[in-house]
C-alpha cells in the first residue's frame, strides 16, 4: 500500500501477491469501525460515571426514541452525500410534510384510521415532491446541491407558515399519536421500530442493490458512470426524491411522538443529520460511506446528551463535544485517505483519476 511513487512504476509492483489486504486491515481502514470504538468508549465512560441510571432500559429507550426521526432522515442523507451532494432542506421538508399530513387529518376528522392513513400518504407525497424538486434542480438545471437545498430549505418552511399562518397544527387523540406513545412491536416502542425497519431496508438498498451501486458510482466519478450507460440524472432525481419521502416518514414519526407540527423546531435538524452522516465516515466528496456508519454517527450525539445530563454536566456541552468529534473525524479520515492514496498514484502519470475536487 505504501510503496513510493517510484516503486509503483517499477515492474515488481505490478504483482504484490494476492491477499496483501487482510480482512483486519480493511476493517481498520473503515472509519465506521473506529468511530464505533469512540462510541463504545463514550458509553463505557458514562456507564462507569453514571452507573445504573445510564445503563437502564428506560434510558436507552429514551435515546432511541430521540434519534428515531434523525435516523430516518440520516438514511436519505447518506444516499445524497454519497452522490457528493448535500440536502440542507430536510428539516423544512419535514415541517412541510407534517403540516400537510396534519391538515389533511384535521380536514377528514382527525382520529379515525382512514383519515390517518390518507394523512400519512399526503405527508409522504409532500416530502417526496420537495425531494423531486431538489433532484430535478440538481440533476437537470445543474445548480449546486448546496444552493438548491438552501433555497428549498427556505421555501418549504415559508410555505408551511403560509399554510398555517405560522401556527402549529395540533392533533388531538388520533390513532397516530396512540401509535407513537403506546404501541410496542416485539418489545420495541413503535417509533424506534419503524426507524429500525427503514434503516435496515435503506442499508440493504445502499449496499446490496444496483441502485446503491450506482449511487456510489455517481459520487465517485459521474462521468465514468455516464459513459457506461448509467442514467445519472434520473438516478440523482430518484435519490433526492427518496430522501424527501423519508423526510415525510420522519414527519409522521414526529407527529406520532408529539401530536403537533413543530414549525419552528427543525432549524438545526439538517445540520444534526449531516453531522451524523459525516461522523459515520461518509465522505462529503462522495463515493464513500455506509449506513452502519451513519447510525453510529447518530448515536454519539444522542449518547453524549443523555450521558451529560446523567453525570450532571450542563447539556450545553453536548454541542461542543459533537463539534469536536465532527471535525476530528473528518480530519482523521482525510489524513488516512491521503496516506492510502500516496504511493498508489504514479508521479509520472499526469492523469488524475479522481476527477472530484
Amino acid at each position, binding site marked *: 500500500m505504501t510503496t513510493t511513487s517510484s516503486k509503483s512504476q517499477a515492474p515488481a509492483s505490478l504483482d504484490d501477491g494476492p491477499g496483501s489486504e487482510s480482512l483486519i486491515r480493511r476493517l481498520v481502514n473503515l472509519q465506521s469501525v473506529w468511530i464505533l470504538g469512540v462510541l463504545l468508549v463514550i458509553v463505557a465512560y458514562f456507564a462507569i460515571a453514571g452507573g445504573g441510571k445510564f445503563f437502564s432500559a428506560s434510558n436507552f429507550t429514551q435515546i432511541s426514541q430521540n434519534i428515531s426521526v434523525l435516523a430516518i432522515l440520516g438514511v436519505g442523507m447518506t444516499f445524497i452525500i454519497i452522490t457528493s451532494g448535500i440536502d440542507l432542506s430536510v428539516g423544512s421538508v419535514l415541517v412541510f410534510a407534517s403540516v400537510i399530513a396534519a391538515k389533511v387529518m384535521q380536514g377528514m376528522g382527525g382520529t379515525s384510521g382512514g383519515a390517518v392513513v390518507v394523512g400519512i400518504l399526503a405527508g409522504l407525497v409532500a416530502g417526496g415532491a420537495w425531494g423531486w424538486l431538489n433532484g430535478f434542480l440538481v440533476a437537470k438545471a445543474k445548480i449546486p446541491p448546496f444552493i438548491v437545498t438552501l433555497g428549498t430549505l427556505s421555501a418549504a418552511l415559508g410555505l408551511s407558515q403560509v399554510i398555517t399562518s405560522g401556527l402549529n397544527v395540533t392533533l388531538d387523540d388520533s390513532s397516530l399519536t396512540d401509535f407513537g406513545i403506546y404501541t410496542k412491536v416485539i418489545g420495541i416502542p413503535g417509533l424506534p421500530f419503524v426507524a429500525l425497519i427503514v434503516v435496515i431496508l435503506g442499508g440493504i438498498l445502499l449496499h446490496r442493490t444496483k441502485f446503491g451501486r450506482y449511487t456510489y458510482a455517481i459520487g465517485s466519478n459521474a462521468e465514468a458512470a455516464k459513459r457506461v*450507460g*448509467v442514467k445519472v440524472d434520473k438516478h440523482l432525481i430518484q435519490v433526492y426524491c427518496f430522501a424527501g419521502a423519508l423526510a415525510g416518514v420522519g414527519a409522521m414519526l414526529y407527529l406520532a411522538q408529539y401530536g403537533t407540527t413543530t414549525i419552528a423546531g427543525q432549524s438545526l435538524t439538517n445540520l444534526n443529520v449531516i453531522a451524523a452522516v459525516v461522523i459515520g465516515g461518509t465522505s462529503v466528496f462522495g463515493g464513500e460511506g455506509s449506513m452502519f456508519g451513519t447510525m453510529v454517527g447518530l448515536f454519539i450525539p444522542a449518547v453524549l446528551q443523555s450521558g451529560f445530563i446523567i453525570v450532571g454536566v450542563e447539556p450545553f456541552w453536548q454541542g461542543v463535544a459533537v463539534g469536536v468529534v465532527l471535525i476530528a473525524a473528518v480530519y482523521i479520515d482525510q489524513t488516512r485517505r491521503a496516506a492510502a492514496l500516496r504511493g498508489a498514484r504514479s508521479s509520472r502519470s499526469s492523469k488524475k483519476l479522481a476527477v472530484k475536487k
Partner: protein
Amino acid sequence: MTPILEARGLSRSFGHVRALDGADFDINPGEVVALIGDNGAGKSTMVKALSGNLQLDDGEIFFEGKPIEMTNPQQVSDLGIEVVYQDLALAPHLDPAQNVFLGRELPAKGILGKFGFMDNKEMRRRARISFDELGATVRSLTTPVGSMSGGQRQGIAIARAIAWASKVVFLDEPTAALGVVQTKNVLETIKRVRDRGIAIVLISHSMPHVLEVSDRVQVMRLGRRVTTIQTKDASVEQLVGAMTGALDFSEGSAL
C-alpha cells in the same frame, strides 16, 4: 473485405474550430489500425464520433457495411464497440470487479434479481477471468481502484473493454502513463485481442509502439485523414512527416 467500422466525410465544428473536416476512417475485423496525428488533429474527436459521444454536423458511419446512426454510448456498446479513454473512466471508490461490471451488473439469481440485487460473487469470478486472460495483475478484487497504481488501473480499464467488446476496441493512449514492462504487457494484449478477431483502434503518440503492433496507420491532420500507410512499408520518418505535413500525401494515395 467489408470494413467492420467505416466513417466517410465526418465533419464537426466547435465554434470556429473545425475539429473534423470531412474525415474518413476504416477498420477491418481482426485488424489493428493506429490512428495518429499531432495534438488537435482530430483523433479524440474521431473516437468520440465513432463511440456515440458526439453529434456530427455531416458524414456517414457504417457498421458491418450498413449505415447506422450513433446516438448514444449505450447503443454503441450494444454493437460490441468499447472505448478505453485516456482518463480510463473508472470509478476510484469502486473495486475492480465493480468497475468491470458497472452499468452491466449481473442480477442475482431468482426473485432477488428482480429487486435489483446483484450476483457479486459471479461478477468477481468473471472479472478475475478477464484479468487473468489479459495477464493484468490485479492484486485485490475488493480494494478500491483509486488506491492502485497506474499500470493496474490501465489493466482494469482495458480488461473491462475487452470483456464487453466483441467487435471493436478503441484504445486512447493506452501506454502514455506506463513503465516499460507494463507497456510491453499492453502491446502483447493488443496482439492477443486481435488474434481473437476483434478490431483494435490504437491512438498513440509513440511511433515505435505504433510500428510494433499495428497493421495499418491512418494519419490525421487538421481534421482529416491525410493518408493510410501499411505498417510494414512505414518508417518513423514517414509517419512524422505525414503528421506534420512535411510530407505531402494526397488523400488515399498511399493506400
